[in-house]
């Protein structure tokens, strides 16, 4: 069978401009080769910076942000598309090869209706008339399970949800009947319960239209559901390339094995969960415009343990953290810490109360002053709470760096000179500097690559056993909950739907929402998606 897409020895470079230094040439992709046949799906997987998006875009002969394809060959149906001129490549883009971006919310033009944008490429390339294209869009909206497919195209991007936009983007890519679609992390920005629907819709649409696809993701469990072959990438080079079955079940490289086995660390929950350190009692909260975001939430956390709060975006999990910190005082109910009521408002809290509860954020980047060195960032709470200065402060900062497993050499670095994982470690050290009893962790690992995230989780657990720390761990990732929690709270639309020790909360019988949430988490297992969909269909047939 002839190859649809054949990539040989691809080399992609970019020029970077580090401040104060002469421009440097960086190799993003180096010597990558693969083949893709008609109707097949190849998964490209790797950490951020592995070059997977860059490779995906090379199928459209496009370099993003100054990246340039400097070597190799990309052949589509036997034609090297890198050799086509500006006009030539324009005839390929949007007609033969289409692209689905990670953030459909940004990739759609806010000024035009979805329908017009979906059919634009097909009409402009002269592949079909406006009416034909509209009919095809309607068909695709149906295949992708969009609500009210007849009128969906009349809507503007801001009028539909993120999951619907992602499906609309898929429809836009499918509309001109392309031979190849590049999916660039199409479900990464979505909640798990939405992700599974989009994933199923994409898979169904690919099969229905017999289109080939490059599927780019950092989540091996997702790519295992949708691909025929998988290529594992690291630092712009191929680590391993094989069939899904081989990669998942018999990986040959250490790096692949680490990816497959990530989050195998699980720990037993603490047996005694009766001595509450933090007690949240029937707490409700609302915004100043009267919009109620929390409805009578009650839960507790014991000393030296971890409470995981799980839920989708908009479930109120971060709001609960804001209420505990005092950023958003509760409208009703009360919170006690070691038996004493916490001052509701942050501004009125005595310094010692502030010291005992610290925070770690999702984006360590934005939570640190880019103009301060690690010494200043970690040293600030030392001065603020303990009045440390000079040599005593430096000594303590070094001690804290050791605790977070970073060498003293980092003390004078700026945040921009640290990797994502290192930044999050510094943020942890800053929280530790106050010697808190409770740390609120708001999705501290969700912006990190799986292996880096794993390191952060291990560090947090080590610190917990060393100094009897308690954590409130906010996450949308069930795998993390399984790994680190003692007790679990599931939140949905501002309400607590489930709370208890991990063993109870995560075992049946489930309430409807927890059931849906647990079943939506992709598992690193071939055929998982089909199984879940079949069981769903049977459940709905039974009703």
């Amino acid at each position, binding site marked *: 069978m002839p190859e649809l897409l054949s990539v040989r020895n691809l080399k992609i470079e970019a020029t970077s401009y580090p401040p104060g230094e002469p421009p440097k040439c960086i190799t993003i992709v180096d010597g990558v080769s693969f083949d893709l046949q008609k109707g097949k799906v190849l998964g490209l997987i790797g950490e951020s910076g592995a070059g997977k998006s860059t490779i995906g875009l090379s199928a459209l002969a496009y370099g993003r942000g100054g990246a340039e394809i400097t070597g190799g060959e990309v052949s589509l149906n036997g034609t090297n598309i890198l050799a086509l001129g500006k006009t030539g490549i324009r005839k390929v883009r949007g007609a033969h090869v289409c692209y689905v971006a990670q953030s459909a919310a940004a990739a759609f033009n*806010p000024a035009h209706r979805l329908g017009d944008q979906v059919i634009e490429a097909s009409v402009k390339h002269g592949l079909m008339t406006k009416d034909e294209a509209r009919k095809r869009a309607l068909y695709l909206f149906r295949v992708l399970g969009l609500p009210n497919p007849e009128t969906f195209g009349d809507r503007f991007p801001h009028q539909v949800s993120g999951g619907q936009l992602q499906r609309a983007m898929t429809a836009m890519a499918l509309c001109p009947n392309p031979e190849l679609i590049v999916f660039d992390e199409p479900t990464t920005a979505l909640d798990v319960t939405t992700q599974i629907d989009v994933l199923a819709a994409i898979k169904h649409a690919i099969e229905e239209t017999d289109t080939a696809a490059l599927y780019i993701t950092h989540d091996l469990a997702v790519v295992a559901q949708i691909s025929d072959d998988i290529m594992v990438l690291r630092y712009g080079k191929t680590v391993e390339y094989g069939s899904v079955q081989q990669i998942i079940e018999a990986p040959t490289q250490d790096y692949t094995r680490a990816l497959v086995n990530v989050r195998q660390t699980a720990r037993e929950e603490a047996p005694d969960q009766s001595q509450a350190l933090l007690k949240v009692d029937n707490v409700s909260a609302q915004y100043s415009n009267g919009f109620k975001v929390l409805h009578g939430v009650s839960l507790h956390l014991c000393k030296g343990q971890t409470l995981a709060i799980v839920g989708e975006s908009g479930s109120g999990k971060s709001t609960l953290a804001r209420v505990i910190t005092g950023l958003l005082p509760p409208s009703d109910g009360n919170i006690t810490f070691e038996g004493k009521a916490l001052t509701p408002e942050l501004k009125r809290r005595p310094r010692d109360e502030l010291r005992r509860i610290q925070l770690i954020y999702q984006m360590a980047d934005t939570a640190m002053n880019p103009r301060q060195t690690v010494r200043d960032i970690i040293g600030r709470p030392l001065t603020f709470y303990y009045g440390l200065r000079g040599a005593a402060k430096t000594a303590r900062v070094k001690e804290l760096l050791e605790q977070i497993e970073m060498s003293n050499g980092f003390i004078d670095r700026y945040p921009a000179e640290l990797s994502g994982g290192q930044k999050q470690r510094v943020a942890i050290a800053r929280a530790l500097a106050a010697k808190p009893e409770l740390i609120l962790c708001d999705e501290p690992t969700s912006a990190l690559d799986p292996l880096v995230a794993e390191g952060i989780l291990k560090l947090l657990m080590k610190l917990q056993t060393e100094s009897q720390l308690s954590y409130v761990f906010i996450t949308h990732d069930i795998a993390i909950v399984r790994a680190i929690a003692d007790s679990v709270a599931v939140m949905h639309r501002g309400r607590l739907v489930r709370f208890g020790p991990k063993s109870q909360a995560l075992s049946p019988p489930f309430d409807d929402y927890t059931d849906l949430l647990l079943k939506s988490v992709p598992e690193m297992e071939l055929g998982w998606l089909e199984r879940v969909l079949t069981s769903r269909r049977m459940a709905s047939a039974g009703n």
Partner: protein
Amino acid sequence: MSNPVETESLPDQRFRERFPLLALLIERMLLSLLLLVAVSVLIFGGVEALPGDFATTYLGQSATPQAVANIRAELGLDRPVVSRYFEWLAGAFQGDFGTSWASRNSVSEQVGNRLGNSLFLAGFAAVISVPLAVGLGMLSVHFRNRMPDKIINVISLAAISLPEFFIGYLLILYFAVNFGVATFPATVYEGMGFIERLKAIALPTATLVLVVLAHMMRMTRAAILSVMSSAYMETAELKGLSAFRAIVKHAAPNALAPIINVVALNLAYLVVGVVVVEVVFVYPGMGQYMVDAVTVRDMPVVQACGLIFAAVYIFLNMLADILAIVANPRLRHPR
């Protein structure tokens, strides 16, 4: 999202939810009106608080207490401030700004002539500067970070850094005195031909254009650049659209709002900034009229000019906001 008990709201909120665009527009217009009234208080109060008074200045040496009191009574200055303010405001809203103390003519009539001249000058400057600024902005985007872009930037920055009276005198020195290609002073009178008029206002127009050009040009450049770097422009390129279609269909609608905004703000500046330029070029517009009135403490004229300038400024700003609101699809098509 929430149960019906929570969504029950005041009629005002319900109106806002159903017609967010209309509600915003009405709110914005009411705000402008409120602002105008506040400005009228400031102008009246400010003029009232000025030291010295018309009667003493007018009478000069012969200012006996009796004569001063007579004039004050004649002009109604002996009545309470509050009632005079409301009379003035009521008149102003009907287009009657009272009589000039100095010339005893109707202020409205005088203003009518002068305002026409000022708007003609400002309008002509706008007709030249807006297309020029937007065009240069596009040009510098096209040659981004290359020589033409840098040259445009440096020249426009130089122009904005010089005060307008200085630019005015420079232009007079070179074009009127040294080369003699332009006329000075820029006198216009009734019954003057259109071409003649244009010739007369060439130098003041050039001064105004130079002053507002840089700001508009740089904002246009920034607006287009920010749109061009957005993800949907990449989508357009990856759809295989031509550069022309991508710009016209995908970039322009989104760059419009910020450009409209800066253009309207600069138009407002043109109308108000015209004061200095008119004085420099001895042009018979509102600015000159106002400055003359200030020297003889002719308060009704000063107040009228102040209020009209404020009204134009507020109106153009309101127009900018309204156009920006209407250009936003999120507000035009609520969820």
